[in-house]
């Protein structure tokens, strides 16, 4: 596998942009969709394909992506139907929904869709929740 530039967190668990890696598109028109890296163009751009999301095969900038730790076994530069077959075989779409990245994206979307009353209820719930935590912490501090 051709390793591309290191993206994601540094350290041993750094994710690499390699062929077959599943990425989440953070910015742009296709934000929210996932795609599979098919090939590299240069240090900053990748050829991606997302037949499972209805994403057309295209070149995308690294900065618009977030690399996940899911990977699919495909050959470099393979065709879309090959990518599609590999994705459905490994059920990558559902595996992605289990990841924290996907869950965070979902909650962000839900938060943006809150109405004024809902935002009020959320604030009240958060204040009550934090108050409970602080009182518990205070109690522990006192006892120790």
């Amino acid at each position: 596998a051709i390793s591309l530039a290191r993206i994601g967190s540094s350290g041993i668990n750094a994710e690499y942009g390699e062929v077959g890696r599943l990425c989440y598109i953070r910015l742009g028109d296709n934000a929210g969709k996932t795609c599979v890296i098919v090939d590299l163009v240069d240090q900053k751009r990748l050829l991606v394909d997302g037949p499972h999301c209805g994403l057309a095969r295209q070149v995308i900038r690294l900065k618009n992506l977030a690399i996940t730790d899911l990977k699919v076994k495909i050959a470099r530069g393979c065709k879309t139907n090959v990518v599609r077959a590999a994705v459905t075989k490994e059920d990558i779409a559902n595996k992605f929904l289990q990841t924290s990245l996907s869950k965070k994206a979902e909650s962000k979307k839900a938060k943006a869709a809150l109405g004024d009353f809902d935002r009020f209820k959320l604030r009240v719930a958060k204040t009550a929740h934090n108050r409970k935590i602080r009182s518990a912490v205070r109690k522990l501090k006192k006892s120790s």
Partner: protein
Amino acid sequence: PRSSVLLASDGLSLELNGLLNGRSGGDLVPLVERSLTVHRGSTDLKQWYQRRVRGKVPLQKAPRFYPTEDCKVPLKNRKTVKQTKLRSSITPGTVVILLAGAHRGKRAICLKQLPSGLLLVTGPYKINGVPLRRVDQAYVIATSTKVELPALPAIGDEIFKRKGKPTKNEKEMFVDSAGDSGYKISAEKIALQKEVDAAVVPAVKAVDMLQSYLRSRFTLTKGQYPHEMQF
């Protein structure tokens, strides 16, 4: 013949006048029919006559003398006053955020649209101190929260109209009116407010957390942008 013919005082009459010069009444109908087809598009004489009788077109004899110069006649005002179009998001019972005035930031309930086009809004007064008040829809953010309103007393624009200061006569012109105490809320208004509150407050209490929501004020914090927010 001319005296026995009913003519309108528009361009039609001049033509008919000309046509009738020297002709007898018997020739009238085909002439009128021809003129009508040209000017009105139809030859329904009965309709034409009835329009004049009903007063939709003035029923006048063509004058003998005409002014030498053509005076400009102002166009007829056919404007009809329509009720101000209300945003589809604002309906009776919608919780609304007031954006300006003494109660800015407060959340109030929109009761209805008054004949003047303004919204009638109330806190209710018992909950957040917003009285029965008129507000323009431009100074309001409509939220998606709606309250089921019961039957309310009929309220119009009249109670909200302020009476002007009484004009002083010559003698009192320079007399200091220390007695002027400013605006006082009428007893009628207070009674009406109590009536409305008695109806609306139970409806508010029926919804969980709605009362505390109406007591709170709308604020923007860091990272909140109204154009990106859903209301």
